[in-house]
């Protein structure tokens, strides 16, 4: 402590940041160039501008007019602020060491800066962004920097949620730069992505699901050159889950609307419910369609399998089977069908592996007469809605399942009733 007083007298121009007594030397001691400007707030809310000249995870070397000794609060980000106390005998003139008393991040507190906070101040991510964009064409540099800084900013916000990470890829090895160090990235996939990125020197983005299927990661790989690149990784599991929830809510709204306008006869069901629908009762007949000639063949098989019925009902069932199979053939290139009976209900089920009916088209495709995306009369669904008693529809990117229920009172019993 005497040393600083002596130094102030003997070498007033010597810079504190160059002095080993100022902030403990070591790998974590970092001199910021240029200094980062912050604001110190005193106990009576009096504010002093300050410049961070150097830091480690426990101390700041500040250039400030704020009186020393004294306790201050330094705000670094919205949810990150640090309580510091000036050390009078470390430093000279308006440059002093300030001990970190307490780091407040959101609800948490700590006695020292975390690696991320330290690196945030030490400017690593900023450097990374500049390095990333340096090799780009000039007109793109600012745009990319802006976007990446926004990403990094986001990743720093995401730090609070503990789900983001920035890494540097150096010829096959990753170096953690900032963000959540223990983010459980599928490193094999990340390495594959970065290999492609540096080999082809182009930006790549991939969404990867962890091996156990529990986590979803959004990975952005940015090349620096043929060996090195930057990797931004985000855990988007929660975002995806939120999207799914929204999709489920949307489907629920559709379900209710469609059930309402069809008088509760057309149900949009989820995969699980459809499993049940397609397995009830006993099988009467089944088949596949891959070309137009399979459709009359399916009708023939259907007629043979049906119980003895009133002719109009037989016609209705074979017509609906035809319409459903025609749709599967037109929109999905084919599919399979089966007929099942349980009690007095015959259920026909047509299943395809096509691209599904989009949510936005669902209402029109099922309810609107003469609506067709494939240049047909577009009344197949109208006919099915008219003849079937109940309809169950499950559609998605991996295919469509349609089940139609027909009440069948056997012809002989019908005569007895009359």
């Amino acid at each position, binding site marked *: 402590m005497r040393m600083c007083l002596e130094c102030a007298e003997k070498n007033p121009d010597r810079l504190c940041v160059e002095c080993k007594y100022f902030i403990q030397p070591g790998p974590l001691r970092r001199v910021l160039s240029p200094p980062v400007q912050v604001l110190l707030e005193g106990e009576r809310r009096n504010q002093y501008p300050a410049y961070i000249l150097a830091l480690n995870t426990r101390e700041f070397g500040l250039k400030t007019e704020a009186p020393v000794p004294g306790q201050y609060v330094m705000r670094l980000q919205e949810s990150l602020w640090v309580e510091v106390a000036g050390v009078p005998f470390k430093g000279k003139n308006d440059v002093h060491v300030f001990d970190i008393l307490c780091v407040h991040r959101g609800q948490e507190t700590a006695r020292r800066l975390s690696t991320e906070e330290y690196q945030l101040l030490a400017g690593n991510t900023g450097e990374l962004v500049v390095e990333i964009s340096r090799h780009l064409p000039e007109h793109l540099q600012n745009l990319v920097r802006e976007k990446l800084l926004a990403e990094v900013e986001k990743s720093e916000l995401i730090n609070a949620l503990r789900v983001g990470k920035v890494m540097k890829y150096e010829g096959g090895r990753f170096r953690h730069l900032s963000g959540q160090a223990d983010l459980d990235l599928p490193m094999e996939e990340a390495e594959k992505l970065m290999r492609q990125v540096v080999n082809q020197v182009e930006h790549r983005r991939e969404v990867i699901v962890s091996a156990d299927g529990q986590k979803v990661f959004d990975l952005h790989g940015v090349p620096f050159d043929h060996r090195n690149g930057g990797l931004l990784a985000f855990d988007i599991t929660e975002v995806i889950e939120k999207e799914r929830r929204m999709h489920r809510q949307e489907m629920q709204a559709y379900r209710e609307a469609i059930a309402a306008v069809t008088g509760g006869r057309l149900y949009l069901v989820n995969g699980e419910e459809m499993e049940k629908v397609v397995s009830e009762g006993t099988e009467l007949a089944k088949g596949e369609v891959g070309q*137009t000639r399979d459709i*009359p063949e399916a*009708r023939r098989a259907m007629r043979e399998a049906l119980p003895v019925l009133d*002719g109009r009902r037989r016609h209705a069932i074979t017509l609906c089977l035809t319409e459903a199979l*025609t749709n599967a053939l037109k929109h999905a290139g084919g599919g399979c069908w089966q007929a099942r009976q349980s009690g007095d209900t015959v259920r026909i089920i047509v299943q395809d592996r096509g691209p599904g009916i989009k949510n936005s088209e669902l209402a029109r495709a099922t309810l609107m007469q*003469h609506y067709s995306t494939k240049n047909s*009369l577009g*009344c197949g669904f*109208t*006919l099915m809605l008219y003849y079937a008693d109940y309809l169950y529809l499950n559609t998605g990117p991996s295919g469509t399942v349609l089940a139609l229920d027909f009440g069948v009172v056997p012809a002989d019993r019908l005569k007895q009733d009359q």
Partner: protein
Amino acid sequence: MLLLKVGVYVARGVCRVVLNGELDMETVAQLQEVVGKVGECTLEVDLSGVTFVDSTGLKCLLDIQDYWRQKGGQMLILKSQPDVAEVMQLVGLDRLLTQNSAPAEEER
């Protein structure tokens, strides 16, 4: 087994196409082919022997009528069976297709 039999009878400027069987995605091409060969005349499509028509079959009949009208001709649908007539009515084609339910006056 032939699913659709298409018979063509021409007399005094009237061409009658008599269909027997099922009109659907598999068989519409047969009807289109026959109609494509018919010269200028009034076209009558006799559905009395048709036991099954689906939306693809109806779309084909509507297309043929449009095509025939563009050529300046007339097309009539004759004698649909009840199940077929019901389907036509359900999709509103009974109003779009010109029909004549009375038996045709000409002998075949």
